[in-house]
């Protein structure tokens, strides 16, 4: 999904700011939301890829507020809705003293049955590759700033499930993951420093092809 969460290279957010060391939670709300997420993930009521997709899909003006506990709560609510546990309005009803009807207390299987065999590895460390230009409306872990770019594979990381497919609930599509290094000047233009480099992981499905060096 091309939206505001894909922040690499965006302008206009001002200088960075920092927080002191030694703080695990910056507010009570942050701790409570973390606690809730750990509980829901442990029980299978929330999954990482689906949750990320739901947070990314928040209305852009909500996401832009950058109130993380509020955004995460909204993402968890959407996850519970997808699993049929709590529909919009249920929490309000319960808060108003209305008893909710019976619910399944075991989360439904959300992933399709399909389990592909792992894709064979097509690339090797040292290969120069071009990243695909894709713009899926669903969840993806390929940032916009790296699409269409050419980089060098610096490591093979093994086989991982493809998050785009997990979030779309189309099944498991395990595949090789590579670390690819890019020149900052290739990605950002001549104003970047000539010796700076960017690295990111590339699922094999994100790689278009090997290119001549």
């Amino acid at each position, binding site marked *: 999904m091309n939206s505001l969460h894909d922040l690499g290279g965006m302008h206009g957010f001002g200088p960075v700011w920092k927080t002191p060391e030694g703080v695990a939670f910056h507010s009570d709300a942050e*701790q409570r939301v973390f606690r809730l997420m750990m509980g829901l993930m442990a029980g299978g009521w929330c999954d990482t890829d689906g949750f990320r997709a739901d947070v990314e899909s928040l209305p852009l003006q909500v996401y832009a507020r950058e109130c993380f506990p509020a955004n995460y709560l909204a993402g968890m609510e959407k996850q519970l809705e997808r699993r049929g546990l709590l529909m919009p309005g249920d929490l309000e009803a319960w808060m108003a003293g209305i008893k909710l009807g019976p619910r399944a207390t075991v989360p439904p299987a959300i992933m399709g049955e399909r389990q592909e065999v792992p894709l064979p590895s097509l690339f090797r460390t040292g290969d120069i590759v071009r990243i695909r230009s894709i713009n899926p409306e669903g969840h993806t872990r390929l940032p916009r700033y790296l699409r269409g770019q050419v980089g060098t594979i610096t490591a093979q990381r093994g086989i991982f499930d493809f998050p785009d497919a997990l979030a779309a609930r189309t099944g498991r599509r395990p595949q090789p993951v590579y670390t690819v290094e890019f020149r900052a000047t290739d990605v950002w233009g001549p104003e970047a420093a000539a010796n700076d480099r960017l690295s990111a992981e590339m699922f094999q499905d994100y790689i278009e092809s090997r290119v001549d060096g």
Partner: protein
Amino acid sequence: MSDHDHSHAEDHTTPPPEIQLRIKAMESLLVEMGVIDPAMMDAVVDFYERQVGPRNGARIVARAWADPTFKARLLKDPKAAIAELAMPGISGDHLVMVENRPGVHNMIVCTLCSCYPWQTMGLPPIWFKSAAYRSRAVSHPRDVLAEFGVAVPPETAIKVWDSNADIRYMVLPERPAGTDHMTEADLADLVTRDSMIGTALPLAPAKAAP
């Protein structure tokens, strides 16, 4: 922390009262439904609040500084090397150490959300999730480092690692000068959270040290 930074942290972690109420109500309802387990959640919060945090990472870094053979093993196979330290609950799964050395400075970010090496560094600071950091860490790393007070000379290459998949990165900073006779425990005190993110250098040893 300046008032400015405090206000940022508050803005980004303190929802309006109706959302705060909603978070509490959601927990109560889900506990009542038997969907979440308060004891388990208490234990997880306690783990991340008290047992896990940047001190774990600092121990790993200090050992690598103190023991070159450990450092070699850590860079080659972080999981196995970290297991040697026998830290309860800390596995180093999918962890990759990126080593600062003369001419190379590393820095980590997650432009798409806030992926972070929880096991060895605890939960991320809130600025690590901010649009201000995520947007510019990849495109303007030198400006970002300058704002953190780190001046990187032009001849030093900056390597930025965007944690967009399952791999988690931790920076192995350079051992500060003047620390030859320090114990591993004292070395660990020089290793800050930000130095393992790459937005700071380790602390200098106290000037008064013998």
